[in-house]
């Protein structure tokens, strides 16, 4: 592999590239899911290849192939330079890469149990057992459970002398109960929707999630939702559960804090950002309670790694400090444009894509009150949990989320269950209305395993630490 990397760097440099990097990637994935006692997915996949990024005359070109052969590496290295030359036909200012110290390093995800060492039979038995427990509950139409495991091995080498080997292990698990009746379909997921919970780590996740203890509750809630009252259309105080708050952070703080969006390079597809560079260090995006960090070093976070795909070491830094917008996720190119230091936020979806600025683990730091205290302190409100639908405008201001379940809060107590809840708002007003965040005891790094961005589409794994929090005077029950 090292020889192939050196061949790529040498070939592109001989072709006139002022900077070159290559990533050689091998990925093994295993996915299992069962639905109503039948196998829905049982699949093993293997993927390998390399991608070469060359800078020529101040413009980038990228070429990638699945064939790990010297002759193909030479062809793609030359092609990456040719593509860069084509890019230079429509260029603005030259691309300048902020300086970094090239690293020779190795990183491996720490884990206790290698998921690929667990027999498939055992994994299937676990899923089928869970599935049966949910399915056996009267009123459940669809029961499903799934496991997903990924091992990604990567070598990054650059013409500046970096050579970094990484092995990232990811594990995920979830289950779902669906009840259908009276023209309604109600879903409950555990521990989260969108496939469950995911970590960088091993099979130990599956035991830690205590699926057996939650199967019956999940099924009961799905059935009960069919008969529950409709979420009212009103304005009220809203408590968001941790997993829903995680997606709220992802969509309304994480994406707008990506510096490529803020500088306009995603304008035609994903969109831009209301957090424009003139607001950096000056703009109140939330109440003084709101502290949000990006932390690619967080233990077990799905957005945790050793080095990003430009060879920049993973780091932790503030995006929002006591409500003030203080930082961006950046790349070497965008960091140079704003005179910043690269903070290790560039990642690619596999070997065939050029890296983009991506969220790592973007987390809301915990507060000081317990969840029981927060509910007890709420006279009239709603608690919503577990995401069902999400949408936000292309500058990340106006959002609307629907959740699987809600409960009315009256005089400090959870009372009745409510179905079909949703809420809407505008990002700075919403975060500005945050008046309480619960403490460490309910804080967890939730996962968003399917964050999409870029053209061609790149799907990447991110994490979001969150504990339930309260927001004042929020519009709920939209479109009822």
């Amino acid at each position: 592999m090292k020889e192939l990397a050196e061949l790529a760097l040498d070939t592109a440099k001989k072709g006139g590239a002022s900077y070159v990097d290559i990533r050689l990637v091998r990925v093994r994935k295993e996915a299992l899911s069962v639905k109503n006692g039948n196998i829905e997915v049982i699949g093993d996949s293997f993927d390998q290849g390399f991608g070469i990024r060359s800078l020529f005359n101040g413009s980038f070109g990228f070429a990638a192939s699945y064939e790990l052969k010297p002759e193909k590496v030479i062809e793609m290295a030359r092609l990456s330079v040719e593509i860069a030359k084509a890019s230079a036909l429509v260029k603005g200012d030259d691309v300048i890469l902020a300086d970094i110290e090239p690293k020779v390093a190795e990183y491996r995800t720490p884990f206790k149990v290698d998921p690929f060492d667990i027999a498939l039979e055992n994994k299937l038995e676990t899923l089928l057992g869970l599935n049966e427990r949910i399915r056996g509950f009267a009123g459940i139409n669809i029961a499903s459970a799934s496991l997903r495991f990924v091992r990604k091995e990567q070598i990054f080498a650059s013409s500046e002398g970096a050579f970094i080997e990484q092995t990232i292990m990811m594990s995920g698990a979830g289950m779902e109960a669906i009840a259908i009746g009276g023209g309604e379909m109600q879903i409950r997921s555990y521990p989260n929707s969108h496939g469950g919970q995911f970590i960088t780590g091993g099979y130990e996740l599956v035991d830690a999630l205590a699926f057996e203890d939650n199967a019956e509750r999940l099924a009961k809630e799905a059935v009960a939702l069919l008969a529950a009252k409709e979420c009212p259309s009103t304005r009220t105080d809203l408590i968001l559960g941790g997993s829903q708050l995680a997606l709220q952070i992802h969509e309304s703080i994480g994406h707008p804090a990506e510096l490529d969006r803020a500088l306009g390079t995603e304008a035609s597809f994903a969109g831009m950002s209301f957090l424009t560079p003139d607001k950096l260090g000056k703009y109140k995006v939330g109440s003084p309670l709101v502290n949000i960090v990006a932390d690619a070093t967080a233990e077990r976070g799905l957005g945790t790694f050793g080095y990003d795909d430009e060879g920049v070491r993973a780091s932790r830094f503030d995006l929002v400090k006591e409500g003030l917008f203080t930082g961006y996720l950046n790349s070497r190119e965008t960091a140079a444009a704003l005179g910043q230091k690269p903070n290790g936020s560039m990642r690619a979806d596999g070997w065939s894509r050029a890296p983009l600025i991506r969220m790592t683990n973007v987390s809301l730091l915990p507060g000081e009150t317990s969840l029981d205290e927060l509910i007890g302190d709420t006279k009239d409100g709603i608690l919503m949990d577990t995401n069902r639908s999400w949408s936000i405008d292309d500058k990340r201001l106006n959002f609307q989320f629907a959740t699987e379940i809600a409960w009315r809060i009256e005089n400090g107590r959870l009372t009745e269950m409510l179905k079909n809840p949703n809420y809407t708002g505008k990002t700075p007003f919403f975060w500005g209305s945050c008046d309480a965040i619960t403490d460490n005891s309910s804080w967890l790094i939730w996962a968003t395993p399917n964050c999409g961005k870029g053209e061609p589409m790149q799907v990447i794994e991110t994490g979001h630490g969150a504990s339930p929090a309260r927001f004042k005077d929020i519009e709920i029950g939209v479109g009822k």
Partner: protein
Amino acid sequence: MIADSSIEKIFDFIMRLSKADQTEALLFAGSSSLTRFANNRIHQNMNEEGVRLSIRAIVVGQTGSASTNDLSEDSIGRLVEAANKMAKISPKDPGFLTLPAPLAHTGSAPFSARTAAFSPFERAEGVKLMVERAKESSLVAAGAFAVQEAKIAVANSLGLIKTASLTDAKISTVFTSKSSSGYADAYGFAAEELSPGRLADQAAQKAWLSQDPAELAPGRYTVILEPAAVADMISHLAFCGFGALSFQEKRSFLNDRMGKRIVGPNVTVYDDALDDKTLGLPFDYEGVPKKRVVLIDKGVASGLVYDSYTATKDGVSSTGHGLPAPNPYGPQAQNLFLEGGDSSFAEMISRAKRAILVTRFHYTNIEDPLKTIMTGMTRDGTFLVEDGQIKQGIKNLRFTQSILEALSNVSSISAETELKETFLGCCTAPSLVVEDFNFTGKTEF
């Protein structure tokens, strides 16, 4: 590009090696290139050569699958072994009877040799033209010019073998001013026919017209939806239940409604991969010939799309809408059509007393699939139309709207249709006038 003879050798090797009762092999190969531009310059530019070989093995009704992009004999041997092993340990699915037997198909996938050979310099020339037009108009251009060539081959142990080659290309662009933006796109099988100059003119016109947008209060309005917005809405409707699996699991909006009127009598929706106006394969990923399926016939729920698994369950024939295995989503309509009407876009504008013109939707998502309630934003060209004229740009609005209700309130359909790429595949759609469209929120731009 991998030769047909090499694919046949790989398939033959797999069928000889596999000990399963039935075996299916599916191969994708191709190259894709994409030039992205923003701030009036190219900022990303890539080419990828890829391949994926997947195997589905069946042992007494038990299924296993595995895939790789390493086409060495050793790797394929491991792949066959893995799929066979997974099949053996899987519980038997009583719903599975057999892989499809070979059937002759008609038609071919659209292919342009010129597009297959399109160079990064030709893409850059197209982008250059758009950027120059933007600069001439004091606007800023962003977008992408994508070109792909692909080969798809499928075989199974019942003697089925199918191969198709296709190309596709897309230009999308957003021109922005300080207070506005305008979108245009073109999608087709031939990159050389996409006309970047025409798209630049469209995007520039929308960006200019929508400058200094006014603010409109949310509420129910008559809307004129351009084809990009209509295609997005129809694709989300399809995902809510045109596939037989969702119907069999009772999570389709069509459950208990088949044969009944569900939308206005002027609305007909169908899927037809063989129509010249779409980009489709002549067979699905199981090798079954594609059939035209009418899904909504003059407002009446009339059909579903099937793969071989769901067809067996309902005792019907597959319509050729299977996705690659393993497929948790079931069959999908990937070449949708909303039938054109007898109006024109110009007439829609000229006849509007007061309406909101929507260029495209952004971040549409389904809140309730049985009630087909979607939410999303307008984007890149939203206008107030009054007394037959586009009056001015307006700030973008959020909608929370049942799709079936919207399609029950269609008062006019254009005869012209456009092919749009969607998250499901593609949709050929006209412009629509929809009454009482429900806008529930607004944003600041």
